[in-house]
């Protein structure tokens, strides 16, 4: 279990994390969501004892990370896939991390095999693609078989097959009762990966709820319906209490009703439908709106502070 309580971190004038509190429980994949610059990486660094918060505290199973000896047995983290010495190979990179934590060499080769890097294990990491580096970073996080895992934007650079592989891995880890925290700036990605979402913007907690609830609570979620009888469809939807707007391409945008209800209304009224779907772009829009002021803030101060 990861507990972040009232953590504040400033870099000069810039408040990266602002009185942030949340708990990450075992047995779920928890998404850590927010636009770039929202403070996700800073929070992860604070949990890992790399950055010291100005106020508040972050603990793992009740202990501060800095007090752990051979921490890879308890906490595995992927912070930045590019954080590898380019002239070293995967064996040396993982081998040194394993050695520092008293982990046998057999575990290193086994993990390199599991993440699919065996054929390039002796090649310099500098020549790896971003996706290969992500796999290497994931292997590093898993080295000590830890109960707590943290991944910062692990999907970046993975091909579709790799994304599916990662999702299965994360779900498997959570199913084994581990605590899994995964950050991302893409809601669409997290919607498919995480069971629970912690959403932050401008360093503050915006939402801490199940993924399903977060998406449903986005009442602005829009349904797109296409029908040759758009006028009739609008009427029945309005009569049922929904909101209707005409979209540029002739389809209807419907809000305020669940998609099942819209389908039933159309069927009951004998209205032919050519398309009926949830507009996922609107999901992303809802998320952007929710975090909008933090995005604007970030754009305004982008030159002053780059999230690292």
């Amino acid at each position, binding site marked *: 279990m990861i507990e972040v309580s009232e953590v504040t971190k400033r870099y000069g004038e810039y408040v990266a994390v602002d009185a942030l509190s949340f708990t990450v429980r075992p047995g779920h994949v928890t998404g850590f969501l927010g636009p770039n610059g929202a403070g996700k990486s800073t929070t992860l*660094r604070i949990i890992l004892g790399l950055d010291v918060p100005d106020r508040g505290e972050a603990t793992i199973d009740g202990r501060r990370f800095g007090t752990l*000896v*051979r921490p890879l047995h308890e*906490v595995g983290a992927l912070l930045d896939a590019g954080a590898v010495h380019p002239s070293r190979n995967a064996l040396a990179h993982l081998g040194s991390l394993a050695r*520092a*934590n008293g982990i046998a060499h057999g575990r290193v080769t086994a993990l390199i095999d599991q993440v699919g890097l065996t054929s390039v294990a002796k090649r310099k990491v500098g020549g790896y693609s971003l996706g290969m580096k992500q796999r290497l970073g994931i292997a590093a996080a898993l080295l000590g078989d830890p109960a707590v895992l943290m991944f910062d934007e692990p999907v970046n650079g993975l091909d579709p097959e790799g994304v599916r592989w990662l999702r299965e891995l994360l*779900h498997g880890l959570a199913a*084994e009762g*581990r605590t899994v925290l995964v950050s991302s700036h893409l809601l669409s990605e997290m919607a498919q990966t995480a069971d629970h979402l912690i959403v932050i913007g401008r360093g503050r907690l915006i939402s801490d709820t199940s993924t399903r609830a977060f998406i449903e609570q986005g009442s602005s979620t829009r349904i797109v319906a296409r029908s040759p009888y758009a006028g009739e469809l609008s009427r029945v939807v309005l009569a049922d209490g929904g909101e209707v707007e005409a979209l540029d391409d002739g389809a209807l945008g419907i809000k305020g009703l669940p998609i099942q209800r819209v389908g039933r209304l159309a069927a009951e009224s004998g209205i032919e439908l050519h398309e009926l779907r949830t507009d996922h772009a609107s999901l992303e829009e809802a998320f952007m709106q929710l975090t909008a002021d933090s995005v604007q803030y970030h754009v305004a101060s982008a030159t002053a502070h780059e999230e690292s």
Partner: protein
Amino acid sequence: MSATATSVRTGSPAKAVPRPTAGRVAWFTDLIRAEWIKFRATRSTYYSILGMALIAIGVGALVARTDDVHWPTMLPVDRAGLDPIGVAFRGFPIAQLTIGALGVLMISSEYSCGLIRTTFAAAPQRRAVLGAKAVVIGAAALVAGEATSFAAFFLAQGLLSSTGKGLSIADPGTLAEVASAGMYMAVVALIGLALGVLVRHTAGGISALFLLVFVAPNVIDGLPQPWSVRIGEWLPPNLAQQLVAIHPSAEFLSRPWSLVVLLAYPVVFLTAAAWRLSHSDA
């Protein structure tokens, strides 16, 4: 890519990876071995050590050979001033820079690519990590430095054969002088490591090192008396020179004090580095 979660992990009840037994010595030994793995697996390690050896041995041999060739036509005053130890170690002021740069790189390379965070996430005891790095670079530089120093000595003395001024390692004080030159390489490497932590930047760290062990001694040597001595006697290369030279300068610190001050350099720099490590974000 058929790996699934269950094949990576073996279920939660029995931990797939046994925890090693406790013990601070075993733990620190593991940290040293972890740093040694990284050190060995990096190409710059070999380039730097090879560079140091080639420059140190090569320049000494070249100077010795030149003196040997010119010996018959040399003026008596020049003959009298020929210092067989000084000849052997003429390349060291340059050679020290490559091993010092390796010391800087030992940690600045981790800062430049972000690896330092992975390192500290695998061992949050930062001062112990610095200690492990110091053991590795210090030991490697000492071994390489001594090997280089003795090779440079024997080669140069052999090449000075026709001058009759070549020394034997059995001559009084010679062994200590040659060994001091090798030890100096470890001192410079450790100062480099500390500067890497303090500056956190490869180019910056190497520049700071060059300033301290190469530029400053030359600039200060040009100052009017007594400043050239008052400041100069405290600088690492001049301290080493006191230990290595057949005839130490009477103006500079005595040999025992030179040794003490020289060894204090890495201690002071590494202490400052340790302080910075535990008082700033990684």
